């Protein structure tokens, strides 16, 4: 661990990696809270995996893979959202299809791209140590867009994620805000691909918010706590992985996953204790 903090002063790439992790945590804390309370984790998983298709195509034609990822993420978010609104019952089949077909397209294009296949691994599992200053600016930009959108439409997003039918009756354009929410999920996925890769995105999107939900009881506080937890996980994950030269993305996810399990266990025990005490008091 100490080794990491000593190296942090000397190496720019480590500073960039840490900055990238912290920036990604902001988006994942805010949007992840919506994903958790609206229970669209599977949907977010579908969006994140379908992104490989866009990356593969962009890679094949020599374009920016992240640009391709952004286009693919937003396109699949809109497609899933549109299908859910039109034919509600086929939603999960479509998500599964998009999930697999997106990856298949990506693999085909990447395999036909001349050069080394190393890049495939870094998209799947992240390449936080290769984050460049340009990437950092892009991540900061995405964070800013998410923050502004949520700041101005907080009540609308809350109403749509709480009770769509009632929101519709109050004259809120539910379809618009739902699709906007999915687009925010899509850009957040792209933000997080830098850090942990597209396979592990879903864990970083949901775990900090799910842990936060154990302790706070409003959406705003949940976003704040999830952001802080995300920052802690990326910092600890990076530090742990540096000495033994472990893959950073996977280490970050394991830190988050273990914390989630401990938190779940502790809060369940706490709840049982409270219930037992209430039961005893009732019997007196």
């Amino acid at each position, binding site marked *: 661990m100490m080794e990491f903090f000593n190296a942090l002063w000397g190496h720019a790439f480590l500073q960039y990696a840490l900055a990238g992790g912290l920036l990604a945590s902001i988006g994942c804390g805010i949007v992840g809270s919506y994903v958790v309370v609206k*229970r669209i984790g599977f949907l977010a998983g579908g969006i994140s995996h379908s992104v490989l298709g866009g990356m593969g195509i962009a890679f094949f034609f020599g374009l920016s893979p992240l640009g391709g990822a952004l286009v693919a993420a937003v396109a699949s978010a809109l497609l899933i959202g549109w299908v859910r609104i039109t034919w509600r019952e086929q939603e999960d089949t479509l998500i599964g299809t998009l999930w697999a077909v997106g990856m298949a397209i990506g693999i085909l294009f990447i395999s036909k791209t001349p050069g080394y296949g190393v890049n495939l691994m870094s998209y799947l599992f992240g390449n936080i140590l290769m984050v460049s200053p340009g990437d950092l600016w892009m991540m900061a930009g995405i964070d800013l867009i998410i923050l502004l959108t949520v700041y101005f439409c907080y009540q609308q997003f809350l109403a749509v994620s*709480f*009770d769509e039918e009632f929101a*519709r009756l*109050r004259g809120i354009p539910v379809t618009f805000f739902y699709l906007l929410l999915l687009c925010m999920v899509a850009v957040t996925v792209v933000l997080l691909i830098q850090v942990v890769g597209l396979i592990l995105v879903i864990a970083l999107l949901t775990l900090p918010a799910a842990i936060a939900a154990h302790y706070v009881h409003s959406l705003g506080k949940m976003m704040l706590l999830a952001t802080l937890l995300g920052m802690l996980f990326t910092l600890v994950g990076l530090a742990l992985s540096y000495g033994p030269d472990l893959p950073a993305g996977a280490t970050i996810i394991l830190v988050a996953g273990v914390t989630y399990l401990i938190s779940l266990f502790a809060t369940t025990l706490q709840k049982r204790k409270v219930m037992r005490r209430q039961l005893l008091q009732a019997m007196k």
Partner: protein
Amino acid sequence: MTAVVSLEDVTFSYSGPKVLDRINLEISEHEFIGLVGPNAGGKSTLLKMMLGLLKPLAGKVRVLGDKPERSCTQVGYVPQYPLFSREFPITVEQTVLMGRLGVSGMFGGYRRSDREVARRVMLETEVADLSSRQLCTLSGGQLQRVLMARALACEPRILMLDEPTANIDMRIETEIFDLLKKLSSRMTIIVVSHDVGFISGYVGRVACLNRTLVCHPTAAIDGDTIRSLYEADVKMVEHHHH
């Protein structure tokens, strides 16, 4: 008196046999009307059509002289089953405040006047003490009152309730209908119920719905009416509400 809700030859089906067949109904201002009938008789469907959540296959629905999807912001709605998760991290007050959406401005937070309205309706429905509680800590009866407060926070001209007392006990059912009776002096109330015997002590008119619709003033309800509606013998119990 002008009709606040008017249905003309309304027909509907969910890709199958007709659920509603040529329904005609006019509801006038400040009326307290009960929609009763057996399960799957089309009660909730008719209510959803008045709210603009479903469109009729044929016929015309007008609410406050306009299309229902346009007038729905002047309607307060209490659903039968809440569609939200009870685990959602939200307080009673925030839930009630959602009734102010569409009344106050589109963007930004709630105004002081919105909070005052929320406070007032929470006092009226007796949930003011619970305002900072989480939804998951409420009992069924308390949740029902919160849903009523949310609907009243819209300051509606029409209040529509779908089986508001289906999941709660008799004592609270009476309390809720006493409250509705009081509210009916300042707004039109349409309540869906399967319990014609209970509500006939409160409402002014009963619309009996089983694919087709027959209206009765509550004084004229007897065993024959109920028998023809449910197509079975029904035990009659005398109710006296004071």
